[in-house]
């Protein structure tokens, strides 16, 4: 199957639904595995990498869940195609930088993807909409168990699954949730949350993982440690923390509504105004403003049937996605900015102005009852 056909549709994690998907955008679990007795990709010679690639790719393609799938060597993908996959969180930025001897295999629903010869021989992930870490773990765990039949994974009696980087040894598992936290950012509580989460061995990172900036008020919460706990224990601990952050975000929004409704409305209104009328906009500005629109949908200021349009814009305005439909050579930053503004204007045309009356303004009757109903559960 061709990549263009797959990326014509947005992935399940974006268009689908799941528990708490207003705040928890997606849940993802990835497992790192290596073949026994073979040097790790970073240290292997090209011939060794190619041999591993063939062995792993064959095994992955034969999985029953990969019947309808896309499989390609990375050196057969264009830079733009690779970037599209990065923007969709289907491959990592590190993997996109790899050339000969690396490949990607993913299913058409874009819920499962397998990176071959990234930092480890195999990194496989499952991703879905909303908060459902247990379900995505079950999906990828099953794929892993099936692969055991045809592949011999490097496993140590004490250290568990062996990985190129000692930070992944043991379970080789990284579970994460992408959370949209504009309430915590606006009320300046997010740093406090990040610090306390870091203290308990979990990490909060930006949009594209390690070392990336938090744009559009999107944060990734993930486990930091992989050795000494079972997969279920790690996910259980992570789930608890995610629920707490979720609650804090809901509370922060309630408090903003009750105490700073004017500011909140101002931000949402300005975001709407700029996005509807801008003719040049960077991806960072677009994400940050779209975040307010998304929160506006959550708060009932915009009709809820606009939710998917807004969510799609988060991805469609990313540099590679902007250009994917065009048969042109790489656009410059300025051209992208105006293209992006045009795309947003077109999409938001279908969306009415925010309905200010829908939320209780400052000083009016904000009983806990109405605030609870405006916060959809």
């Amino acid at each position, binding site marked *: 199957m061709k990549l263009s056909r797959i990326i014509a549709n947005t992935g399940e994690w974006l268009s689908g639904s799941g528990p708490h998907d207003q705040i928890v955008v997606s849940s993802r679990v990835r497992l790192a595995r*290596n073949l*026994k*007795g*073979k*040097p*790790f990709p*970073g*240290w292997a010679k090209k011939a060794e990498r190619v041999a591993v690639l063939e062995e792993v790719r064959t095994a992955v393609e034969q999985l029953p869940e990969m019947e309808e799938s896309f499989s390609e060597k990375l050196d057969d993908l264009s830079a733009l195609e690779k970037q599209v996959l990065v923007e969709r969180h289907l491959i990592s930025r590190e993997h996109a930088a790899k050339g000969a001897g690396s490949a990607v295999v993913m299913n058409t629903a874009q819920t499962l993807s397998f990176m071959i010869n990234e*930092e480890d021989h195999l990194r496989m992930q499952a991703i879905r909409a909303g908060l459902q870490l247990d379900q995505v773990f079950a999906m990828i*765990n099953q794929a*892993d*168990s099936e692969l*055991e039949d045809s592949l*011999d*994974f*490097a*496993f*140590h*009696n*004490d*250290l*568990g*699954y*062996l990985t*190129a*980087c*000692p*930070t992944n*040894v*043991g*379970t080789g*598992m990284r579970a994460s949730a992408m959370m949209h936290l504009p309430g915590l950012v606006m009320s300046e509580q997010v740093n406090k949350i990040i610090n306390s989460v870091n203290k308990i*061995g979990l990490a909060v990172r930006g949009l594209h993982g390690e070392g990336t900036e938090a744009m559009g008020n999107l944060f990734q919460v993930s486990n930091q*440690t*992989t*050795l*000494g*706990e*079972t*997969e279920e224990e790690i996910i259980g601990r992570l789930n608890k923390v995610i629920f707490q952050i979720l609650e804090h975000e809901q509370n922060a929004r309630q408090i903003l509504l009750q105490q700073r409704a004017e500011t909140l409305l101002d931000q949402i209104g300005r975001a709407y105004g700029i996005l509807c009328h801008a003719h040049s906009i960077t991806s960072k500005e677009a994400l940050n403003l779209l975040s307010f629109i998304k929160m506006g949908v959550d708060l009932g200021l915009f009709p809820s049937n606009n939710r998917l349009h807004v969510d799609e814009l988060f991805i469609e305005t990313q540099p590679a996605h902007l250009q994917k439909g065009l048969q042109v050579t790489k656009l410059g930053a300025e051209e992208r900015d105006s293209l992006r503004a045009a795309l947003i204007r077109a999409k938001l045309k279908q969306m009415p102005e925010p309905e200010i009356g829908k939320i209780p303004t400052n000083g009016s009757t904000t009983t806990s009852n109405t605030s609870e109903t405006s916060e959809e559960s």
Partner: protein
Amino acid sequence: MFCDVCKSKEATVFLTQIVEGKMQKVNLCEGCSKEKGVNDPTGFALADLLLGLGAAQEIDKNPAGNRCPVCGFSQADFKKTGRLGCSACYDAFAEGLSGMLKNMHRGSVHTGKVPAKLRVGRLRNKELSELQASLQKAVQEEQFEEAATLRDRIRKLEEESYAETALTQESTEVNRIAAVAQSSASSVIAEADEASKKLGVPKPRKNS
């Protein structure tokens, strides 16, 4: 203030470390600080270590050699990349890595998923060592009837283990453990055989 180590020279290097929420202060003189390696001008060795970046210094402690015998990866490579060369590196640099792993993770032993192929072997080894302990106890307590039953179960498990090793290439580690378990078992079994002969306990029954 005197140096905490030599207790004779004036302390000029003050090290404050927070270990599991408790603050520890160490005062050192210049000589001792150099000796302990805390005079690193960048001064981040400790922080790096806690964050899992300074693994290279840890590996330096490994006296066995600077290279992995299997893939030829060196500690300098590790310092550069923060990644290991192959799975055997974990054994080659085990000593240096263990401290680092302890700082990096919540435990030092894997308790999660085990590949199915190895699961059987791991369980059998566990059962074997338990049976051997019971056998030893039975012999000591002169419960020879029970000892004979245990001996039969151990033999059966060992046969399974042999059969499987012939079929599949089990991990060398599992084999090594199995071999150790078997050799220790055979001496106990010989002892049990000897004892049962003396007391006229029948040899293992085929249909039991």
